[in-house]
């Protein structure tokens, strides 16, 4: 029975033919190719975890900072009968205290993260369509850039906003 020829000889030019004959370190070459992609996948999964951690810290920072500012205002009002709201820099300080780590320290409304605070006053419920009293609207934004992928994009914008009302301020006549 004639022997079946499974692999007809390919006519390759000299350097390619010489390269194709060598099977040494084939697995290493394959691992080098596959390993890069696999490392990217693993880095992406690590980044997903870091992003979740960052979102959690941002939420905690905003909620806690707003509440701390509102409670401080309520305490001051209870003792002095005057509404004295914490300054923007004091609120940023609260945020930094609660959101670090993993977020870097905020310094203002244009830093990364940025903290934007606005006090509103509706003492005596003068405007019926708005909640009575003094309240703080606090927003923190953070441009999150994934580790190892900075060259592929500009990152993801994260933003959390909360409103904290000041206890006992519904009839407060003074403003911040």
């Amino acid at each position, binding site marked *: 029975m004639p022997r079946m020829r*499974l*692999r007809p000889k390919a006519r390759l030019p000299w350097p390619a033919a010489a390269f194709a004959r060598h*099977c040494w370190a*084939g*697995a290493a070459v*394959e*691992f080098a*190719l*596959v390993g890069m*992609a*696999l490392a990217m*996948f693993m880095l*992406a*999964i690590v980044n*997903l975890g870091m*992003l*979740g951690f960052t*979102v*959690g810290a*941002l*939420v905690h920072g*905003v*909620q806690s900072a707003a*509440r701390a500012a*509102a409670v401080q205002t309520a305490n001051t009002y209870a003792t002095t009968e005057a509404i004295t709201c914490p300054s923007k820099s004091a609120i940023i300080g609260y945020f930094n205290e609660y959101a670090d780590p993993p977020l870097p320290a905020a310094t203002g409304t244009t830093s990364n993260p940025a903290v*934007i605070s606005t006090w*509103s006053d509706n003492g005596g*419920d003068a405007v*019926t*369509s*708005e*909640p*009575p*009293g003094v*309240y703080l*609207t606090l*927003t923190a934004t953070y441009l999150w850039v994934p580790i190892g992928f900075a060259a592929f994009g500009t990152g993801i*914008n*994260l*933003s*959390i*906003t*909360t*409103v*904290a*009302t*000041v*206890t*006992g*301020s*519904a009839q407060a006549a003074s403003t911040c």
Partner: protein
Amino acid sequence: MLIRRRLAAARRASASVDFALTSTFVLLPMLLGGADYISVISAQAQLNTALQSLYYFAYTNPSAASNSTDAGYIIALINGASIYKITLPATMSSGKANASISYGCFTPPSTTITYQSTACTASQTQQTLVTYQVKTTVSLPFPLPALSNPLPLSASGTVQIQ
């Protein structure tokens, strides 16, 4: 037939083929699902924060806690700066009106509380509670077959105000 035998006999680049199959059907879907998951938890975080704002509003203004105009104004303030647009539906999923007041009643020395929508009798001790529900939708960056897109999310809770 010849081609099939040649392919079956070939062992070169088998790891690359394995990886291509694995990454296409396992790793890549996991990664895309992870991106969707992050979008969802970001929106849910904003939703929970909005709900907490309503809790604080209710604590500090018990007499206005059921005022849906005031509650809606707080949500509007949040929407002014938020990526996600939150709504305060007039009717909650339970069928009750949003920002509805309910009462927990018990007659001492018994501590068994009965929850009802009407005020307690004069001989009973009364707890006043308010229930809020907020909703939003999130557009998934990579829609998956099992999930609707945009994905509706909601958060609801009851807080004692008096």
